[in-house]
């Protein structure tokens, strides 16, 4: 067994190259220059092998901010040091074990973050939503409304994007307001609702944070009775009552933070971030839609209207559109929704929500 050999030593104070002889002693290495002066004595348990090419064993001191280095190129001396010092392993086994441990921890952290995305974010967003003051929610709503209008108003109609402003539309507007007020009076919402009909061909309606509801022209055209339209509006009022818009903004922010920043967009292009957001957010909202359906039926029941009309219009609209992927759909399966709604609805009683003349005017709300 070799007990000494040549090496190159840098003391960390200057960059001078010391050609040294390394002697393996009982407790550590003795590093001495050509004149037999001892330059350093390093204990075996303080040695650490640092990054170097394969044919060099470069040794530094563990937990030492200094930068003294010993470069060993002599294979026999390398082996001898390897045997003596626990922190040095030329076979790479030590490094592999450390690497495996670290990888295990990182994978565990990844699983934990995914669990946070699946369970943590909806629950945190839900709790934060109730803490958002009404004034801030209103502002959030205004900002979202401005953006939504820009996105939806593709034809650039501006002011005219809303139906019910023209001279021939005003009767329709009055009828629409009457219907909304009738629902709102029984809804017991914290803040007033602002509802508009907008010129969009799709049969849809959306609720924004802070109580703004957009009903699309296409929905008015598809609705056959006032109760069908009222059912959809009541569904949107359910979102307003449950503050789903605010919650969804918070969830989106949480997901963006988690996938965009913590995990990092590791493949670039943003596609993974967007995909993860879409899938997770639609999984959150499926439950929210079921709750809004229930709210709508309860509200319709309480004013003696036909709660099951919502099921009728949903089936008609849902049947018209192509079935998409469930994983991306933010609404639950239409058939299942309709069954749940019909089971909850009571038989209608009392006067209709608006009379036939008002309904006829409402149907013409977008006919400039």
């Amino acid at each position, binding site marked *: 067994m070799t007990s000494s050999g040549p090496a190159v030593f840098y003391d960390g104070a200057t960059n001078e190259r010391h050609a040294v002889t390394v002697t393996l002693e009982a407790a550590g290495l003795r590093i001495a220059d050509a004149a037999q002066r001892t330059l350093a004595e390093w204990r075996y348990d303080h040695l650490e092998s640092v990054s170097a090419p394969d044919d060099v064993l470069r040794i530094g001191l563990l937990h030492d901010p200094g930068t003294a280095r010993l470069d060993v190129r002599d294979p026999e001396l390398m082996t001898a040091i390897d045997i003596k010092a626990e922190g040095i392993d030329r076979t790479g086994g030590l490094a592999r074990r450390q690497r495996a441990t670290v990888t295990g921890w990182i994978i565990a952290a990844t699983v934990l973050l995914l669990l946070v995305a699946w369970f943590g974010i909806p629950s945190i967003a839900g709790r934060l939503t109730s803490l958002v003051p009404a004034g801030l929610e209103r502002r959030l709503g205004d*900002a979202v409304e401005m953006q939504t209008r820009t996105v939806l108003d593709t034809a650039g109609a501006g002011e005219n994007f809303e139906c019910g402003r023209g001279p021939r539309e005003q009767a329709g507007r009055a009828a629409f307001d009457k219907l909304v007020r009738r629902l709102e009076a029984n809804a017991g919402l914290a803040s007033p609702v602002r509802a508009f009909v907008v010129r969009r061909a799709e049969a849809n309606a959306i609720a924004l944070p802070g109580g703004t509801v957009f009903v699309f022209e296409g929905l008015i055209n598809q609705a056959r009775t006032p109760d069908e339209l009222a059912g959809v509006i009541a569904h949107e009022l359910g979102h307003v009552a449950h503050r789903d818009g605010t919650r969804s903004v918070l969830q989106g922010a949480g997901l963006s933070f988690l996938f965009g920043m913590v*995990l990092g967009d590791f493949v*670039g292009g943003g596609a993974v971030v967007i995909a993860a957001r879409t899938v997770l957010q639609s999984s959150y909202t499926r439950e929210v839609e079921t709750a809004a359906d229930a709210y709508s039926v309860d509200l319709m029941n309480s004013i003696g209207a036909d709660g099951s009309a919502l099921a009728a219009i949903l089936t008609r609209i849902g049947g018209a559109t192509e079935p998409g992927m469930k994983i991306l759909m933010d609404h639950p399966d239409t058939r299942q929704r309709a069954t749940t709604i019909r089971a909850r609805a009571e038989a209608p009683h009392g006067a209709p929500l608006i009379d036939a003349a008002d309904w006829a005017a409402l149907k013409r709300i977008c006919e400039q």
Partner: protein
Amino acid sequence: MTSLDASMDAPASVPSRLPSSVPVTARRPIRFTGQPRSYWRLLIRGAALLMVTLGIYRFWLATDVRRFLWSHTEIAGDNLEYSGTAVELLIGFLCALVIMVPIYLAFFLAALDIGLIGALSGGLGVALLFVLGQYSIYLVRRYRLSRTLYRGLRFHQDGNAVVYAIGASLWWAATALTLGLTLPWMQAWRERYKMRHTYYGTVPGRFTGAGWRLFLRGLPLWLIVFVPFAIGFSALTEAYDPETIRLVLRKASDDDIIARIEQLDPGLIDTIGLAIAALSMAVILAGLVYPLFQSIQLRWWLSGLRIGEMTARSHLRTACVYAAYLRFVAYILLCAIALMLAAVPLLMVFGWLLQGDDVALWREAAAALIGLGTYVVSMLALSTIYHATVTFSLWRLATESLALDRFDTLERVTAAGGRPSSAIGEGLADALQVGGL
């Protein structure tokens, strides 16, 4: 491929290319001893772990890559050492999150304000994040230098990151306004500032590259790209008519847009065609001259580096840079063919999963995972190939093409710089996605 492989296996031929009139002692050759095969292995393993850990592994991969490149760079018989660790990068990143979250939150709240602040917050936010990006770039360099050891001595960087960030941002703005014409002076300013504050032990660095030299060499390339770009752009401005666009897009649905344009303005299609042809020409030419530009800039940069009395001169050959990019393109093509072959069975599984009217949620989830997985694998393959070909070759070419004069003046340097700097700049750069290697 044979000639490319030959050039990879012949690092020893570089010193012999130096003019023989210069004594060998005055010029110390730099060698790069890293094997492409080991680098590939490191990157592929890293890409697999990136995928499994959704990117968290990036701190470990970056550290491995730097250790590899540094430790295989041998200057006058001694290897550089990268002494940073992945845990430092991770901690730096977590600290950066603590800084970034309040900033993003402030922007979010400012955007809610409909008034002037709200209107300004968008543009202001972008500008602020840009300056912050430049700030973190300076700190990143400080971290990497203070983790670079040569002969048992650290490099370090002082100077004011805020000054650098503001200066660099102003230069970027000027460069954007002049369509890149002031880029050489910007580079000169940035390198001068960085090198003036760079030290090896107690020895300060300098940068002597002049902006106008880079400008003169780069100007022909700029013209090659700019002329077709200008033609295309002016054709587009000529064709731009908000009224026509509004009419065309008014009922943007299934009917034929081209037919509608033809009907509104018969000459418009030709103008748009010319614009598209000229602009695609500009893009293709830009891609073709990019390696040349990179080689010019690299040579200019390397030849301007000074540490104490030591001077550097680069003999980088442009053909080698083109070879690196050609290798990149060749591997991309191979990889695309492999992916297409793999796509056949994948599509069959995909179809089987989604067949029928009422597909179970788990089948959809599996199909979505296949789709997303394919995308992730292709993107990771792209970046792996880029690093294994372009980054690797440029590092090798840059180091091996370098001749160092008066290297002997760096023989007795004393340590300085105190403790190594924190990795928070690395974290910020990561959060802002301006980091790089």
